[in-house]
C-alpha cells in the first residue's frame, strides 16, 4: 500500500510538472522565431498571451514579440512590446534587459536623445550599479548612430571589453573631414575647401568664377561705374562666392557620410561583438 502510494505520488508529481499546452505553445513561438519566421512567431506568442490567464509567460512572450518586431524593423511596435516586457519583469535582471532592449531599439532608429536619456536614467538607478560597463557600452553605440565618433570613442575607451570599438571609432573620427575647416578655407580662398576635400576640379572652377567676377567688379570700380560694380558683385560675384561656400560644406558632408557608412557597414557585417 505504502509503495503504491509513493509510485502514485511520483507519477502525479512528474505529470504535474510535465510540459503543458502553454509550454508547448511558447516553445512553438520560440521555434518560429529561431526559424526567422517572425510573423508567425508573433502570432503564436500573442495567442499564448491571449489565453494564458496565469501571467507566467507574460515577460517571455512580450519579449519574444518585441524581438520579432525588432527583427522586422518595426521599431515602434518593438518598443511597445519591450515596454510591456519591462512591466512584467520578474526580477532585476529581466527589468534591466527590457530597458536595455528599449535603448537598443532607440539607438537603431536613431532617436539618440531618447536613448541617451534612458541610459542616464538607467545609470542613475542604484539597482543597476553593477551594469555600469554595459550602460557605457550602449552609450558609445548611441553616439556612433548619432555620427559622433569622437564621443563614441571616449565612451568605449572606458570599457575594457570594448577596446576594439574604441580604436575603430577613433580611427573613423580621425578620417572625417572638418566641415568648419572646409567652409573657412573657402571663405579665405574660394575653392580651397573643395581642394581640402579632394575635389580639385570643382575647386579650380570655383576659384575661376570668383576671380572672373571679382575682376569685372574691380574693373567697374576703376571705370567709376559704381552702380555696375554693385550689380555685378551682388547678383553675380556674391552668388558664386556663396555657392563656393555651400559647395565646400556639401563636399565635406558627403565625404563624411561615405566614411561613416563604410564604418557602419564594417560594424554590421564584420564586427562580432554585441550590436544594437
Amino acid at each position, binding site marked *: 500500500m505504502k509503495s503504491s502510494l509513493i509510485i*502514485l*505520488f511520483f507519477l502525479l508529481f512528474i505529470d504535474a510538472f510535465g510540459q503543458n*499546452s*502553454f509550454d508547448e505553445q511558447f516553445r512553438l513561438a520560440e521555434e518560429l522565431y529561431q526559424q526567422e519566421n517572425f510573423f508567425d512567431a508573433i502570432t503564436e506568442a500573442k495567442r499564448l498571451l491571449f489565453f494564458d*490567464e496565469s501571467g507566467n509567460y507574460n515577460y517571455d512572450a512580450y519579449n519574444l514579440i518585441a524581438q520579432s518586431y525588432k527583427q522586422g524593423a518595426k521599431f515602434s511596435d518593438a518598443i511597445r512590446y519591450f515596454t510591456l516586457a519591462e512591466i512584467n519583469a520578474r526580477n532585476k535582471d529581466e527589468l534591466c534587459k527590457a530597458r536595455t532592449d528599449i535603448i537598443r531599439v532607440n539607438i537603431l532608429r536613431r532617436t539618440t536623445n531618447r536613448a541617451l536619456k534612458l541610459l542616464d536614467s538607467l545609470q542613475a538607478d542604484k539597482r543597476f550599479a553593477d551594469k555600469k560597463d554595459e550602460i557605457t557600452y550602449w552609450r558609445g553605440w548611441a553616439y556612433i548612430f548619432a555620427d559622433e565618433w569622437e564621443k563614441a570613442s571616449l565612451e568605449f575607451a572606458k570599457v575594457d571589453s570594448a577596446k576594439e570599438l574604441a580604436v575603430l571609432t577613433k580611427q573613423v573620427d580621425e578620417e572625417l573631414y572638418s566641415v568648419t575647416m572646409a567652409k573657412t578655407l573657402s571663405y579665405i580662398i574660394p575653392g580651397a575647401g573643395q581642394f581640402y576635400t579632394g575635389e580639385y576640379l570643382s575647386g579650380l572652377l570655383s576659384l575661376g568664377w570668383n576671380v572672373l567676377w571679382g575682376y*569685372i567688379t574691380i*574693373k567697374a570700380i576703376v571705370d567709376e*561705374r559704381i552702380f*555696375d560694380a554693385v550689380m555685378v558683385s551682388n547678383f553675380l560675384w556674391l552668388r558664386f562666392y556663396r555657392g563656393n561656400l555651400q559647395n565646400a560644406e556639401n563636399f565635406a558632408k558627403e565625404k563624411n557620410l561615405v566614411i561613416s557608412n563604410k564604418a557602419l557597414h564594417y560594424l554590421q557585417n564584420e564586427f562580432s561583438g554585441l550590436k544594437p
Partner: protein
Amino acid sequence: MKALIIILLLVVSTAVKPQDKTFNFNSPQNIRKFADFLFCDKDYLRSAIEYQRIHGTPGDDTLRFKIALCFSRIKNYLDAIDNFSKVNQTSAYYNESTLEILKTNFLMDNYYGVRKYYLNEFVNINTKYRNEGKKLFNFSYLFTEDPLPEMNDFLIPFDENEQGQISSFYNWKKDPPYKSSLLAGIMSAVIPGSGKIYVGEVGDGIVAFLVTGVFAFLAYDNFQANHTTRAWIFTAAAALFYGGNVYGSVAAAQVHNVKIDFEYEENLKRYLEKHNYYTPNYGFCDEE
C-alpha cells in the same frame, strides 16, 4: 498518515496545475476568440488569417464580412472587394457588404467603378442603404471631369445640415479658381513680373520687374558708354531673368492649379472620412 498523503496529493494537484494542461489553442471556438481580439487590437492581417482558418463554420455568416473588413483596413482592396462580394445574400451583413464595396472602390480612387457597381448592382440588391449609396454615387462626380448632374438632383440624398457643405464642393467643382498658365506667360512677356502678380505671387512679381528692368537699363547704358564686355554681361543677365520670369510665371500658374486641385481633393476625402464614407458603425469592438 493516509489523510496526510491525500492532503499532499490534493495540494500538489491543485497548486502545480493552475491551468488546464491540455488546452486546445486551435479549436474553432478559440481561433474565433483570438481573431476577434486581434481585430479589435487593429492587427487586421493576423485577424484575417485567423478568420480564414475557420471560415466555413456552419451558422456563422459574419466571418466572410470580417475578413473583408480586415483586408479593407490594411488597404488590400482587391481582396476586400473579392470577400465582400462573396458575402451570402442570406447573411445579416449582406446590405453592409454592398455598401462596403462602394466605399472600397472610393478608397481605390476607382470612381467609375463606384458608378458602375452602383448602377448595375447596388440599386437592385441593396434595400437598406440606398440613400448612403446614392450619396457615394453623387460624390464620385466630384472626383472626375465628367459633367455634373443638376445641383438640385445632386443634393437630393443629402440631409439639410450637409447640403451647405456639399453645395460649396459642387460650386467649386463647377467653377474652380484656376489661373491660366498661358495668360500668366503672356503677361510676363509683355511686362516682366505681371504674370507672377496675376498668379498671386506679388513679391516675386515686383522683384522680377525691378531686376529685369535694372539689368536691361545697365546693358543699354554700358553699350552707350562703349563698355561692351559689361554691356554683354548685363544683356545676358537681363535675358536670363526675363526668360526665367516668363517660364516661372507659367510654372507658377501650373503649380497654383495643382495646389488648388490637391486641396480640393483633400477636403473631399477628409469630409468623407469624417462621415466614414457613409458606412455604419458595426459595433464589433467597444471603441468602434
